[in-house]
């Protein structure tokens, strides 16, 4: 294949794919929107009131409830993106043959993949908005820059969704997700969501900062507290670049799978 697959995306077509998922979710909103938010809402209470009451000291200069609130906010969105582009996408691709039907129309494979990945990222951003309402009730959102957090989560979720999608396009059995979910969910524990990365052994610190999700957590927390600096800009750049790279890989994998 020559050139970037990303350049083959027709965003009008990608939006048609996005709209298909939106329509389905609108129909199933009771099952799709509220239950998945119960667990993060309770975890904020558990971490903030429960574990947080045991932690008297501030963590990286902020109360633990604020620290962990930012972490849960990001992790909730990212988990949603992972699930959408693993099991959700696999069902549509293999069991429902939805991709086959879509590719029988003028929509190309790059636009199809982009629509799916951006849908997962949109769901992540939407979830983060709802979690932010809960955080607002706890008086955790201190900076007006917090309004940018869903944007950061959406871009970060695009990258992670693309990684998940690349894996989905590469596997032959749904059971192979055990490996991916094991690695992906483990990485969510070392990305600075629940405790500062500098508590980790040095080698894991390097690994953690190499993962774009750590930057998504850190940048979101900085927006929440209003403590942006040049490091934040580097993190933003890394989130964008990694999302583009992952997107390119995902679309190439999908293209290879769908055109044989």
């Amino acid at each position, binding site marked *: 294949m020559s050139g970037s697959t990303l350049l083959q995306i027709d965003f009008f*077509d990608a939006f*048609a794919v996005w709209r298909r998922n939106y329509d389905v979710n609108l129909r199933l909103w009771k099952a799709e929107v509220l239950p998945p938010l119960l667990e993060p809402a309770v975890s904020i209470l558990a971490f903030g009131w429960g574990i947080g009451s045991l932690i008297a000291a501030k963590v990286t200069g902020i109360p633990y409830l604020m620290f962990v609130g930012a972490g849960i906010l990001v992790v909730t969105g990212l988990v949603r993106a992972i699930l959408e582009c693993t099991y959700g996408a696999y069902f549509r691709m293999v069991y*429902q*043959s939805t991709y086959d039907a*879509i590719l029988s*129309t003028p*929509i*190309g494979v790059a636009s199809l993949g982009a629509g799916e990945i951006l849908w997962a990222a949109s769901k992540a951003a939407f979830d983060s908005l709802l979690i932010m309402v809960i955080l607002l009730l706890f008086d955790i959102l201190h900076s007006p820059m917090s309004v940018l957090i869903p944007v950061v989560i959406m871009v970060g979720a695009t990258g992670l969704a693309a990684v998940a999608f690349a894996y989905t396009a590469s596997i032959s059995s749904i059971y192979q997700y055990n490996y991916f979910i094991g690695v992906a969910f483990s990485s969510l524990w070392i990305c600075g969501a629940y405790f500062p990365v500098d508590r980790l052994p040095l080698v894991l610190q390097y690994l953690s900062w190499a993962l774009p999700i750590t930057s998504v957590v850190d940048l979101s927390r900085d927006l929440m507290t209003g403590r942006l600096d040049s490091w934040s800009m580097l993190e933003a750049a890394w989130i964008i670049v990694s999302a583009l790279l992952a997107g390119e890989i995902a679309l190439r994998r999908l293209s290879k799978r769908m055109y044989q």
Partner: protein
Amino acid sequence: MRISAFSNPSRKQNAPSSAVAGIKVSQGNHCEQSPGRRHAVEAHRLMKKYGTFTAVDEIDFIVERGESFGLLGPNGAGKSTTMRMIYCRTPLTSGHLLVEGWDVRHDQSKIKALVGIVPQENNLDPDLNVIDNLNVYARYFRIPAGEAQDRAEELLDFMGLTEKRNTWVEALSGGMKRRLIVARALMNNPKVLVLDEPTTGLDPHVRHDLWDRLRELRRRQITILLSTHYMEEAQTLCDRLIIMDRGKILALGKPLDLIERNVSRFVLEVHEVDGRSPLSLAPKVIAEAHGATHYYFAPSPELLTPLISKYSDHKSLLRPSNLEDVFLKLTGRDRLD
């Protein structure tokens, strides 16, 4: 109802007029004018290999515009692969393939805008109801919502599904799902309708019902490409057909011509003749033995009737020869793969 031409900047349509499913379309399809279009499909030395396996082996054929063209062959003959190449889902290994004058290698979105596809497997969207299956599909062709809605209602009426418009797809019977897939394939007002074994697994009532609707489309001059292993289906629906086996074309022509060219017009089947050799007969009668059945082919039934008395203790059947006889002769009657 009269529906005007769809218009959008990138999938502009200015092809000649056509009418499908009772819907008059004043100006053609969702596509650009094709370059020097003469035939619906032109395949030249078309080849598809998967590793060392050759699925389609340098075949040539032409499908004229407005004709019903069949692809017959046993499982694994290369029919579906050929069709997938036509609707741009499988890349060619070598050769040339034009659909409505467009090259499948370079003009995929143009071709896909022109083609309606009824796949072998059901790929309706189970997360949507009947009418939304059509409306959401129309979006992929950038058909404006109002026009899509009108067209969907017309097609549901044409396919006898109006009462099911709000039913979930999973609640439909197998026959209704097939009809909905055909309706969906007509949403973009295609020039070429590709049907890959459309009636496989359907009961006879449903199959005949679907044939009636396909005949109606045929009368409206839409080009139909149909793969099947039901000989009756091919004989009933196709103007011309090719018989394929192991990736190659064994025969091409009109159903009746193929019968006359490959087997005589009448056949006497004699069943349960284990161990006996076929009788030697007049020069114009050709005898074949396959398993426990003898076949006697002749240009007229009179040449065969004397034989019936010679097999008075066996079940026998005198009938006109059909495509199945041609098919079995060309692909081998005793093949079980």
